[in-house]
Every structure is written in C-alpha cells, then in structure tokens.
C-alpha cells in the first residue's frame, strides 16, 4: 500500500474534519450522547418494616428495620436498612452516629455464630453444640452449688445463699429477659448478681 498517499488523504480529511467540528463547537450543532439514569432506584421499595428501638443509649430512639423477607409470615428476613422512626415522639426520625449505623451492628463481622468452648490452658476457642454447652454449664453450676451452698449461718439463721457463683446481667436485654433471668438466678440462691447499672 502506498503509505504516502494514504497519509496524505488522512491528513486532508483530518484537516477538513477539524474545521467542520470547530464550527460545531461554536454552536452550530449538538452531540446526542447516550443518557444514563442519574437517580438510583429507591432501595426500600418492596421491603418489610418492623418497629424497634435503638439498643444503645437510654434515649431509646424509635427505629424501623427494613428487611427482605417477612418474619411474621414465617420467612427468613434479612435486614437491609435501618433508619429513624419519625412517628417516635422522642427522636422524631433522627438518629445519632451510632443509631444511624445500626445495620453494621446487626451484620458485624464479629457477631457470634455458634457456641464455642475454650478448654483450660488452650489458646483458642473450639466449636461446640448448644446441647453440650448447656449441659456443661448446668453440671458445673449444680456441682458448685451443692458443694458451697450455705443453708444457715453461724447463728443458725436460715440464709440459703450461694456466693461462689456469680451472674452479671447487662443492660440492653429486654425487661422480659431481665425478669426471666432474675427468676432463674435468684431461685438458685445466688447473691453475686449485678448488672451494668453498677458502673
């Protein structure tokens, strides 16, 4: 192929093309580029709502959990978004930096998934089953209680206390969990029993 000719032709075309588009650029034409949708589709469409309260501080802001799937229909529900509940008189839909990021708590990589046990002296946890874990806890509790239960004090007064095992409740569990916990713990005679309100 004759390079010189082809180059010449190309250069001439380019020159003409340039002149032509310069006119275009000065306002004598318009380029139609493909339009792309600017606005994201609304991500809460077709999700299921559940009313909840923020588990962090005691302002107890109302939040709405948005999920794919409906627990109330017996489905698996995956929470996809959490935001403030505007109907709530205290927070009126607002949330603090913790509340706004609640989804990250629900889905934290460090959420526990299964019961684990760490044997004495071991340097890591091993998986166990609920069955084994509860059995082990109950067994050790009973053994310790039977061994250390104080039925009467030195003065012969019935005291029925157990102080070699302790229970520490938190302060983000529900009142219902709290009361059931109270029943289970106190019925054993445990006195070393406290909750986060202490600190």
């Amino acid at each position: 192929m004759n390079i010189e000719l082809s180059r010449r032709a190309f250069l001439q075309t380019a020159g003409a093309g340039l002149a032509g588009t310069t006119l275009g650029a000065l306002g004598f034409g318009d380029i139609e580029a493909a339009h792309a949708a600017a606005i994201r589709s609304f991500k809460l469409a077709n999700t299921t709502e559940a009313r909840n309260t923020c588990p962090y501080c005691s302002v107890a802001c109302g939040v709405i959990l948005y999920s794919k799937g409906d627990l109330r229909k017996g489905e698996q529900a995956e929470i996809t978004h959490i935001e403030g509940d505007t109907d709530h008189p205290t927070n009126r839909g607002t949330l603090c930096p913790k509340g706004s990021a609640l989804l990250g708590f629900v889905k934290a990589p460090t959420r526990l998934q299964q019961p684990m046990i760490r044997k004495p002296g071991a340097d890591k946890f091993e998986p166990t089953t609920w069955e084994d874990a509860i059995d082990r806890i109950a067994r050790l509790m009973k053994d310790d209680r039977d061994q250390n239960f104080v039925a009467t004090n030195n003065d012969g007064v019935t005291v029925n206390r157990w102080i070699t095992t302790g229970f520490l409740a938190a302060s983000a569990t529900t009142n219902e969990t709290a009361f059931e916990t109270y029943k289970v713990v106190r019925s054993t005679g445990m006195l070393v029993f406290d909750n986060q309100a202490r600190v």
Partner: protein
Amino acid sequence: MFPPIANPSVTDVAPRFSEKDLVRRSASTVPAPAERLTEVAKLIDVSKCIGCKACQTACIEWNDTHPEVGVNAGVYENPPDLTPDMFTLMRFSEWENPETNNLEWLIRKDGCMHCEDPGCLKACPAPGAIVQYSNGIVDFVHENCIGCGYCIKGCPFNIPRISRVDHTAYKCTLCSDRVAVGQGPACAKACPTQAIVFGTKEEMKQHAEGRITDLKARGYANAGLYDPPGVGGTHVMYVLHHADQPELYSGLPKEPRISPLVEAWKGITKYAGLTVLGVAAGVGLLHHLVMGPNRVSDTDEENAERLVRSDRHDSA
C-alpha cells in the same frame, strides 16, 4: 420543631423528577424543561450542630459506601477528608473569639453545596456525567463519568473525589433517590438536633431568618445566612454565627465563585483555541489551493547533479 422528614414508604412509587427536568447537562445541551420544579435546599445550622457525625454515618449507610477504617491523626475529623466513600464530613475548628475571650468550637458539615451555577458541571468534559435538575440538585452520573477530575478543579468548594476503584467522581447527591420519592436526604433525617433541615429553598430561607434572630439575641451580632451569590446561590446553605467570617469554619470560602482560570479555560480558551486551529487548517487549505505545491523542478535536480560532479573534480 421544624417538621421532621416523614418515614419512607416501602411501596414502589414513581420518581417525582427525572431526565426531563434537567436544566443543565455537562458537555451537552438539554432542552429547557416545560416548567421548573420548586427549588429545594438543605439548610445547615452550624449553631445547632453538635458535631456528632450522624450525618456522616447516615450518609454511608444510605449510599452504601465503604470508607476504610483509618487512624487517629490528632484531630476529630474522620476520615481526614472527603473521599469517594465519604460524601460529607464534619470539620472542627477551635477558635478563641478575641472579642469575648471565649473558646468556640466551630463545627461545619462539609459537602456538596449544589450550586445554582455549578463549577463542576461547567468543567466536566464528559457529556451527561454531571446533571442539574430544575429543583437545584446537582448529580453525578457514574456511567458517563470518565474520571478526569476536572470537576474537582471546577468546584469552588473542593468537594468531588475520584474513586481509585472505578475511576469515577463521587459527591453528595442530596440523596436524589430519596428526594425523588418525596423524602429528605438521609443526613437531614438523621441529624439529632435538626441542625440540618430540608425543604424548599424559600422555606429554608425563612427558617434561617428565625435562627438568625435567635442567634442575634444571644449576642452573635454577625449571624447570617450563607447562600453565596458568586455561584448563583446554593441549594445547601449554612446559618453561621459569624457570617462575616466564613473562613473561620474550616476555610469556608468567603466569596466563592468558579475560578476565573476555569472560566477562562472553559470559556475563551475553548472557543478561541478551536477557532485558531480551524483557521490554521483553513489557511493551509487555502494556501494550497491558491499557491499549489512547492515542487522540485528538473533544473533543481540538474543543479544538484552539477554540484556533486563539480565537487568530485575539485577534490580529485
């Protein structure tokens, strides 16, 4: 209390504005929309802001961005700057007021101002990568973005950031997806003290008036609204206690405008440049047509041959 933003609906609703409401489109022209939507605005009352960063976390959650866990750099700003994954940032500045001798901790939520005359859009070379709706929202369309970073240079507020992952520019969208279904932006909904409120621009100006009156009553004689005319006004406005000194708030520009350099680049240079090139090409063409090519004549060849021969004699 300013009416809070209602809970979102989970039923599918059609967006209230779309392509047909564009008033500007980068590197292209759009037909004027039939009628302009009511202008919206976000008002940030710095005097009510407690710097809690709820706006930042709500923004991350809503926009599904993934900023990295950084380090502490001896300041409260985290991340240290806006990033492609952090569209808004609380900036903190400690200022000792020389008039009162009191410390003031001036905390400003930084982010896109949604200028009426957007410098980013002006600078953008990619058709349709930046659009402006008639309600005032300036939005980036990532499918069209080429990642050149011209928007950063165009922006008087230094807002857009280019992603190192997909090489497109990111900034606050004013939650266009929420506004499109009648919601307010995620940050405004989250803001615990309603330091951020959202509504029509007129409402926001009115609301600001009330706030400024309150601030003046508390001794802030220079309290005022930041809605800079240099960029045609903004759709994100501030109430400042010291409106006479916006620079105190981590360098909020006092009289922002699109840089004259950018104006020159996108104005005169663009047109003059192409004209010069067009003319140059045209002159060449014309010269060729009139004068024709400059050819070597047979005489020239003979002269050359003669020269070569004579020289051989000389040197022989």
